[in-house]
Structures are given as C-alpha cells and as structure tokens.
C-alpha cells in the first residue's frame, strides 16, 4: 500500500501507465498542452484549470441530482401495476405543496394509495440506505486512510445485522420498533471498533491487515448470527424472517422506516461535512494531520461513531446490502476528486440514486418474484471490487 516506496526512483507515477485517476489527469494534460509552456504556472492558466475542475464538480452535482429525481419518479412509476409518470409527479407534488395547488382529478384511490403509501416509502428508504452506506463508506475510507474500506468489507454491516438479529431472536423487537435499530447500531459500532483496533497499526492501515481483519470478523459475526438463528429455530417464522432480512431487501417498507432512517442519515452526512477538512487531512497520514492542528483522536472517534450510526441505521431498515459503501465513494472520487466537502454530498446523492435503480432491478428483472437487493448490488459491486484489488496489486506489487 505504501506508494512512496514504489516511487523511490524519481519517475513520475503516471509513466508506469497505471495512473489512479486517468480521466482527470488526461483532461488536465490536454488543457495544458493548449497553452505555450511559457504560460505554465501563470495565474491565468491556473485559475482557468481550477475553474474547469470546479465546473466539473458543478456539472456532476447537476447530473446526479437530475438522475436522483428521475430515479424517484421512475422507481415509483414502475411496479406490478404501471403508473404514468405524470400521475406520480402530481401525487408527490400534492403532498409536498399546500393543499389545493395540485389538481388530482382523474387519479383513482388505488393509484393514490399505491403511489403514496406503498412505493414512495420504499423508494425513499432505498435512497436513505444508499446515501447512508455511501457516506459511511467515504468516512471509513478516510478513517482507515484506505480506499478499500467500506461497511460490508470490514464487517460493520455484519455487526449491525448481528445486533438486529439479537433483537429479533430474543423477541425484543416485538416490544418496540426501536430495539432493532438500537441493537444494530451497537453491533455496527462494536464491529467497527474491533476491526479498527486490530487493523490500524502505526497510524495507517495496510490493505492486507484490513481485509484479513474484515474476513475474520465477518466469519465470527456470521457464526454468531447463525447460532442465534439456530437457537430460535423452534419459532420457524422468526428464523425465516431473520434470514430473509439478512439477505437485504426493501420489500414492504413503510413511512415508519423512512422517518426512522432520516435523522440518522442527516446526522451522518452533516457530521461528515463538518469534519470534511479534517478528513482530507487524515488522508495525509495521522502524524501529518496532527502536526497541522487536527485533533486526530477526537476526530477519529466522531467519524467512527458517525459511520457506525449510518451503517446501523441502513442495516436496521434494509438488512445487509453490500458493495454500495465501497463503489460509490470510489467512483465519485475518480470523477470529482478526493476533497470531502464535495465527496460527501456527491456520494450521498449518487448512493441514493444508485440504490433506487438497484431496487428497481431487483423488483422487475424476474417478475412477479423479487430478486434480493444484495444480489443486485453484489453483481455490480463484486467485479468492481476485484478490479480495484487487481489494480492495487499492479500499482504497488503487494497488498
């Protein structure tokens, strides 16, 4: 993982042909070649280049916001009965705008109910889970200073699932709706803390130790979860419910789930934004961050808690959905750069849109049955993860 060692010889990393950031650097280079070299470094050129970069971010935000809006409408419109997009927009508007502003004539009762009571909460939960996992992934990648960290790979999601399983198996979940999220948060926090204290040695996490700690923890937690399920096998429906939910899915989500997940996702995103610059500095190494005035231990505790809160909330409403927390921040970083002030909101929007589309696939690919959501995200995510690992090996030569 130590890129410095690779670049000991003073050869620019780009000549090795495996530049981390091909699209960005190519743009920059081609722009630079348009100007005579005497102009290089003059403030006019540098201002122009930074303008292009900020335009790129603006463009990205515009595109992803539009995609999210389209995803919401399409996600609500498509289902076992098709509903016209116009109807969807009108129903949504009628609830968001003061009564009387939107004309609902010609929309029957059942369509109203399907749009507002069944599909809207499902789509919103998908958006919240996607945003939450993506931001948790971005935070964990900053925390571990490692682009391969994410809630599922290091076992945080599994920890959350174990907590929720505990709440379900012991029957606590029957008493109050809040036991599942509380226990999944505790499970996620414990798992994240354990993997962090094992894998993060000397200010920086090696890829190998992070992945190995994640594998071990995932296996341990998986065993504990299975044990819990076996213990409750007398009550067949409970075990069935747990297993179904462990596979990750968004079926029969209600407004209660939306209201439940919203505050956690909002808090997580706000925390990530408040500590955006500290996260940037942490990517430079803990010692460097500390010498530049970051209260490293304090910031790490905050980020750890926030990432666990986001993961716990996501797991509580959707089960374990893999790879979103890994892919989304990664792709966004490639497109608009690693600065967290933009990375965090862009990841949240991208994760939300991605999850709505993934859920749409899950619902429609094999109708009338649903494919589990985690299967869809794994089908996209696992090859991407393997690609990242291979590229990492090519760049650095070892894990």
């Amino acid at each position: 993982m130590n890129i410095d060692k690779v670049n000991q010889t003073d050869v620019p990393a780009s000549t090795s042909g495996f530049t981390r950031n091909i699209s960005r650097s190519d743009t920059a280079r081609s722009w630079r070649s348009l100007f005579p070299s005497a102009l290089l470094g003059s403030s006019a050129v540098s201002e122009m280049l930074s303008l292009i970069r900020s335009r790129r971010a603006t463009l990205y935000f515009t595109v992803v916001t539009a995609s999210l809006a389209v995803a919401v409408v399409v996600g609500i419109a498509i289902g076992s009965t098709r509903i016209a997009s116009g109807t969807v927009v009108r129903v949504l508007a009628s609830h968001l705008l003061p009564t009387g502003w939107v004309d609902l004539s010609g929309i029957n009762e059942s369509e109203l109910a399907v749009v507002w009571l069944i599909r809207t909460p499902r789509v919103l939960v998908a958006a919240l889970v996607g945003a939450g996992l993506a931001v948790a992934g971005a935070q964990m990648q900053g925390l571990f200073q490692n682009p391969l960290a994410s809630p599922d790979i290091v076992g945080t999601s599994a920890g959350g699932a174990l907590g929720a399983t505990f709440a379900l198996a012991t029957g606590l979940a029957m008493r109050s709706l809040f036991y599942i999220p509380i226990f999944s948060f505790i499970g996620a926090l414990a798992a994240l803390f354990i993997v962090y204290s094992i894998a993060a040695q000397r200010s920086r996490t090696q890829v190998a130790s992070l992945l190995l700690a994640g594998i071990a923890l995932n296996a341990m937690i998986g065993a504990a979860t299975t044990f819990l399920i076996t213990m409750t096998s007398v009550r067949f429906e409970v075990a069935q419910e747990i297993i179904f939910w462990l596979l990750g899915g968004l079926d029969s989500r209600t407004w209660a789930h939306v209201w439940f997940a919203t505050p956690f996702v909002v808090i997580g995103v706000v925390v990530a934004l408040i500590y955006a610059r500290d996260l940037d500095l942490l990517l430079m190494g803990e010692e460097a961050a500390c010498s530049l005035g970051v209260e490293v231990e304090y910031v790490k505790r905050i980020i750890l808690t926030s990432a666990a809160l986001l993961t716990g909330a996501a797991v509580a409403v959707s089960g374990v959905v893999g790879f979103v927390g890994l892919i989304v921040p990664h792709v966004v970083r490639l497109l608009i750069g690693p600065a967290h002030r933009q990375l965090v909101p862009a990841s949240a929007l991208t994760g939300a849109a991605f999850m709505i589309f993934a859920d749409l696939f899950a619902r429609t690919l094999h109708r009338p049955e649903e494919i589990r959501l985690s299967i869809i995200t794994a089908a996209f995510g696992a090859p991407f993860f393997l690609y990242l690992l291979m590229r990492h090996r090519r760049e650095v030569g070892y894990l």
Partner: protein
Amino acid sequence: MSGLELLEVGLEIDDRWLVRGASLTLRPGCLTVLAGPNGSGKSTLLRLLTGLWAPNEGKAILDGRDISAFTNRQRARRIAFVPQDTHLDFAFTVRDVVTMGRHPYLGRFERAREYDRRAVDDAMARADIIQLTDRLVTEISGGERQRVIIARSLATEADIILLDEPTANLDIAHSLDILDLCRRLAGEGKMICLAIHDLNAAARCATEVVLLQEGRVVASGAPAEVITDSTVRTIFSVNAERVVTATGEPAFIFHRLTDGNGRGYEDR
C-alpha cells in the same frame, strides 16, 4: 524567550528508553542536524520537538512554556513537521495539499481567503513548485512530492520546521536541492531541524550538528568540531577521512576499521 528547546528529555516505550537525558536548543537562522546511526533516536528526538509525542522525563519548551500547554492548532502555527513517510495516494492537486497548511488558521466552516491564498502562493514559490500547481500529487516524482510537503509546511507560516529524513528516498540531485532549500530557509531566519543519517549531507548543510548514539547526545556543535575521526569511529564504527573538495566544502570518505593489515574490522 522565543524558540524551541528540549531539557533533559527521555522517552520510554515498552521498557526501553528510545531517548534519554537529551537536551537541545533550536535557534533562529540555525540549521540543526540530528545525525546518528539507525536506531540512535533521531526520529524520536524530532517527534519530541514536534510535540506530537510527550516525553516521560524532562520538558519540551516552546516560547518559554511547556509545549503540552499549547493546543494542536496553536502549536501547528509555530511548528511544522515534514514526516519521512508522506502519504500521497489520494488524488489531490498540489495546490490542495499545500492549502492544507492553512488548516490551523481556518475555522471549521471557513474557506481559504485571499490572505491564505497568498500564503499558499508564496509557499509554493519558495519551494519552487509553482509549475506543479494543478498537477495531481499521485502523478509527480518523489523529489517533487518532498517539495510539496515542504511547501505545505511553509504555508503554515511556522518559524520552526522539522524534517524527518527529507532526502531518504531521493537521488543525489534532488537531495542537494532539498538541502539547499533547507539552508535557504534557515537563512531567512527560520529554525530548521533535520534528522538525517548521511554524515556528508549533515556536514554540508548544518550550522549545528547533534550526534546521537543509543538515545543519548554524544556531541553537539559546529560540524567541523563534532564530526571528527574519533566521534565517527565510536558512533558509526568506521574511519572517516576528511577531504576538501574543489568548492572548499569538507567531505568525508568512510573506510571500514582495519587492523593495519588491510583486513576489515569484521574479519578480525
């Protein structure tokens, strides 16, 4: 009193004293070099100077106050640190990285202002990396990275700059560039301290050399007084032959200790 000093500091980790009884004063305009073989405590002493590590014994004093009395942000405005292991594998631009040096001055929701931008420009100019402004730090060379990190330390406007083995991964030309830059910064009145294992580099650029062995200060003073045949022999177990180069600078050629028959120290 303005300046940074260590008074009889010691640091013990796992029942082993990495540094003990070491005293050291940095002065404006001075380039102090911590030299010694591997494991002699150079990096430890440097980290005690940065205030990142607190000593078990003795005191680190900044401006007459114990360094632990400063907050991280206050300290970061006075002391900049250039670690040996610089992590630059996230694709920030060079300007982004140098701007991070303004962190100790910016409020949580504040963005870099005109003054900060000027400080960053100035730092990049002095580290001679203006031409790299919009390059990504993941695609520049090792020598350029080192300059970027030095520029970041300059952007903090700290008057004390501590560098850990700044030339360790660089070829000769880039090493000389970095050492010249350090000397120039000392000439501007900053307090510069380098940990370095290369004695020739130490002799070439230092105004003061502190020789370390097994966590203790063995000798300190002007390079010519400190780097002598006897100190080099005891600390590094080699013979030093002092030669004067065409430019009048001293340089050393090292020979293994021999028993007079041409056989090496280890052959005996």
